[in-house]
């Protein structure tokens, strides 16, 4: 008997046969296949009861109703709320990505106090009590020394309960310096004030208009309430309404319009008046409206005996199609045709506000466009523009101003804007840096990110350096929060009670209820509660102005009898509102529409942008639905949708016409240095026929330097860094639509 190689071979055969006859290989194969389908990192919804909670999305001012699908307390998906008047079940890509903001790593987890150098990101965790007492101590000192006016606040909006509570806080404290992130809505509000005589926001009956003349509005790029605009666009296509897009770049709106007219940017007001010229010359305007309900059309004698040129004379003298053609670069025959079509439409409507309307823009342009609507009678008429009265909080008792508060409120605003005005935030940095007025000691920032969104970020940062104490109430570690001294993180929109007021351009008064869909995940506090705690900590007159035990009580009082409807439906619409007719709508001195208010001089030159002739190109920033460019940074889901002709890895692309590329000896993908009077950046070139030669387009919403975590920061460049503010001569607000620029090979 000898054990050799063959014996072991035989053993092996036996093992193989035995294994094959046992369940081991088959069971193992099955188990492994199940294992490979259940990787631990694969996101799997929790097991449990699923539910939908209705709320409203406040990531942009669009105010869309949302329906959040949850399994137990975990958010699974955000959908549009069916039956919500604004978005009717629709939702945009940013709204869909909201859960990434809720669960993402850029949230601030607890109150923080800066320990390192400003902006270095070195923080010490502090308790809420410590944060509140530290700030109240500082504020108390300023109040006692009679420097209450040296405190300022920047809010994301000036509407809504939290913003109004914020402005109330400053008022009771004794500071006139309440600022908000401005937009085209502010310019429109001024236009309506001067021409209609009412303090109101514009409401456009877009759904019933049949000829939409858009002066560069990104109707499909996030202008107004974005989802409402998409739905309106569907309606226009169905009803054969025509959309004319006047823009220097082939945006999505231009591509989807019936006619795209490329215009030299900044000359839109001239075109509007050129169209008005043809309407008047060919007697195509609405005579009933102009003769009976308007003033300032014909020349008139002012109170002090001067003869003032009427709108008609100015326009006929200065805006002939030929003159306008030279300014705008549009053929005179195209202007005449446009005017005739506009006049012959049943419900023509002209709109302005470039892109998403993030920049307030030229007041003269807004008034020219508004005058165009008035000429054809599209004011307070089906398919026209309506003034939407501002909804102020009714339920709160008036602030009993103590002596310090009254003294503080009597101080001039730091930006030089008239008291009780919305202010001009664009003038804040220069006011601080010039050192002419008083210095600012404390700045509160709520739901806004001025260090990123304001024009010329570097100057804004320099101005921030002069403010010794900055308090951020942001939910995210954004650029401004990173530069703050104390951060008191707010709940994120899905965790808080709030109201979303009527979105820009919407023609019904609506309030939507944002209610906590989730319990707060982190050690955050509702900004409303933070303000109430600060007021209580200060005591005296300030505490008296904040008698509520918490924000919920304050909110319920503000909403009053609307609360019941809000809780039941999720929104409240002023459906009974009867919109006044031409007879009673205008509240100007004459009771008529004012074609030539003192603030409107159609003859003045258009807003001039920055840069001399050494900068041969024009840089225009553009906005898209795929990049969130305001306070909310682009969530990763949304960045995934951005084409690689806009963002490739961390490089961002400028759009230039092939002709411009040729004259600069550039080809697709070249790395260039884009230089403007305000700064320079390394970008890559994308050739695009859809942009006018001589221009450079850069997307807004990229180039974050904060928001760490590797998902948001350092992708592309921030367009606002390269563009400086340009002050509108009348409104004082930012009217910059671009800046001069040049390119050089890197």
């Amino acid at each position, binding site marked *: *008997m000898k054990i050799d190689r063959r014996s072991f071979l035989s053993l092996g*055969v036996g*093992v193989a046969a*035995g*294994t094959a006859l046992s*369940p*081991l290989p088959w069971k193992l194969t099955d*188990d492994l296949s199940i294992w490979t389908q259940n990787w631990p990192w694969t996101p799997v919804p929790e097991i449990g009861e699923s539910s939908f909670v209705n709320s409203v999305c406040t990531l942009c001012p669009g105010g869309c109703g949302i329906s959040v699908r949850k399994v137990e307390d975990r958010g699974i998906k955000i959908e549009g709320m069916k039956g919500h008047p604004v978005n009717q079940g629709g939702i945009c890509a940013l709204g869909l990505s909201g859960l990434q903001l809720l669960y993402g790593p850029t949230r601030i987890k607890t109150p923080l106090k800066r320990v390192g150098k400003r902006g270095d990101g070195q923080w010490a965790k502090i308790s809420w009590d410590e944060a509140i007492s530290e700030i109240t101590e500082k504020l108390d000192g300023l109040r006692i020394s009679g420097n209450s006016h040296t405190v300022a606040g920047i809010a994301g909006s000036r509407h809504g309960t939290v913003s109004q509570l914020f402005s109330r806080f400053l008022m009771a404290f004794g500071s006139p310096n309440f600022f908000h992130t401005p937009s085209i809505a502010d310019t429109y509000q001024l236009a309506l004030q001067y021409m209609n005589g009412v303090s109101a926001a514009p409401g456009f009956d877009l759904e019933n208009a049949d000829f939409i003349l858009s002066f560069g509005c990104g109707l499909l790029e996030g202008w107004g309430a974005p989802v409402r605009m998409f739905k309106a666009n569907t309606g226009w296509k169905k009803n054969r309404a025509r959309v004319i897009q006047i823009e220097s770049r082939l945006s999505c709106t231009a591509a989807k319009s019936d006619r795209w007219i490329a215009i030299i940017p900044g000359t839109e007001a001239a075109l509007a008046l050129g169209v008005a010229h043809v309407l008047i010359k060919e007697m195509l305007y609405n005579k009933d409206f102009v003769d009976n309900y308007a003033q300032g059309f014909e020349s008139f004698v002012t109170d002090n005996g001067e003869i003032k040129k009427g709108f008609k004379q100015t326009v006929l003298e200065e805006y002939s199609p030929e003159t306008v053609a030279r300014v705008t670069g549009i053929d005179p025959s195209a202007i005449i045709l446009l005017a005739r079509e506009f006049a012959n439409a049943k419900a023509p409507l002209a709109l302005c506000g470039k892109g998403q309307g993030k920049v307030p823009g030229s007041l003269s342009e807004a008034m020219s466009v508004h005058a165009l609507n008035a000429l054809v009678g599209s004011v307070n008429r089906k398919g026209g523009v309506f003034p939407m009265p501002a909804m102020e909080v009714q339920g709160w008792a008036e602030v009993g101003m103590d002596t310090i508060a009254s003294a503080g409120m009597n101080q001039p605003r730091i930006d030089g804007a008239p008291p009780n005005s919305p202010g001009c935030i664009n003038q804040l940095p220069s006011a601080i840096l010039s050192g002419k007025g008083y210095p600012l000691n404390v700045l509160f920032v709520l739901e806004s990110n001025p260090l990123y969104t304001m024009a010329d970020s570097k100057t804004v940062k320099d101005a921030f350096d002069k403010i010794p104490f900055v308090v951020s109430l942001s939910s995210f570690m954004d650029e401004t929060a990173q530069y703050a001294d104390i951060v008191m993180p707010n709940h994120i929109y899905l965790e808080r009670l709030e109201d979303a007021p009527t979105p820009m351009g919407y023609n019904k008064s609506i309030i939507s209820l944002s209610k906590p869909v989730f319990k707060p995940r982190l050690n955050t506090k509702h900004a409303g509660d933070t303000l109430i705690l600060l007021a209580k900590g200060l005591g005296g007159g300030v505490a008296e102005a904040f008698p509520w035990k918490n924000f919920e009580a304050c909110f319920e009082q503000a909403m009053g009898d609307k609360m019941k409807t809000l809780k039941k439906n999720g929104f409240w619409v002023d459906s009974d509102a009867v919109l006044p007719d031409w007879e009673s709508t205008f509240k100007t001195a004459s009771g008529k529409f004012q074609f030539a208010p003192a603030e409107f001089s159609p003859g003045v030159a258009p807003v001039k942008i920055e840069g001399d002739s050494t900068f041969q190109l024009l840089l225009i920033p553009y906005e898209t639905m795929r990049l969130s460019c305001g306070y909310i940074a682009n969530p990763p889901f949304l960045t995934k949708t951005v084409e690689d002709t806009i963002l490739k890895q961390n490089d961002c692309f400028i759009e230039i016409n092939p002709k411009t590329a040729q004259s600069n000896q550039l080809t697709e993908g070249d790395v260039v240095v884009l230089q403007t009077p305000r700064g320079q950046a390394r970008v890559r070139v994308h050739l695009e026929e859809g942009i006018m030669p001589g221009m450079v387009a850069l997307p807004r919403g990229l180039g974050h330097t904060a928001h760490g975590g590797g998902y948001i920061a350092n992708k592309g460049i921030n367009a606002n860094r390269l563009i400086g503010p340009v002050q509108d001569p009348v409104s004082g607000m930012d009217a910059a639509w671009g800046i001069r620029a040049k390119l050089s090979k890197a």
Partner: protein
Amino acid sequence: MSEIDDKTQAVSKKAVSSTHGQRREDGGSGGVIILFFIVGLVASLVVGWVLFPKLLYSQKKQPIDFNHTLHNTLVGNGCESCHSFREDGSYSGVPKLAQCIECHEEVQSSNPEEIRFVEQYVKKGIEVPWLVYARQPDCVFFSHAAHVKSAKMDCATCHGPIGESESMKPYQQNRITGYSRDIWGENIGGFKKNTWDRMKMDDCSECHQKKKVVIGSVQTQKEGCFVCHK
């Protein structure tokens, strides 16, 4: 003749002589080979049928030893009294603590398990981490409503007479997949006697074929994979 040829010859001679030698020992060596074969066969069968399942599954005890029989006599609506359907038609599975509290806010008997349950979970408001024997992988979509409500099937057809059990059997967790042994079945070979012995895909299709129930996906109106694997 070259040197290489010499070597070749030498090797072939050696080869021939060794073949002769082996032939002579054939009788003894054959037995060893068969013996080794049997040893290998038996050992691997033992490994596959006995040792492998012991290694594959870990044994876990349920947090509370629940008595189904006792509860069944006290409730009015059979299994559905606790394992109910939600308002939206979805199946709630193992009851949540809130449901247990409806009766067990206070200890009702001297049963040590109930006392432990009330003290450890009810009083502290902690959900009981029940181990679910019938939990299918996440890639499986199964509607209880379709089977219990529409097809009027008994719970026991798939779950067996668990409602008659007086104590909870140990939960055997597959170390590779993390799922319960009840899915593959107690028998490692996959043999079954009763309909509830296994809960694999073949068992679903066996019944569907027998009953000639072929229903397409609600979304696609087609039959096939996507009816259950969405």
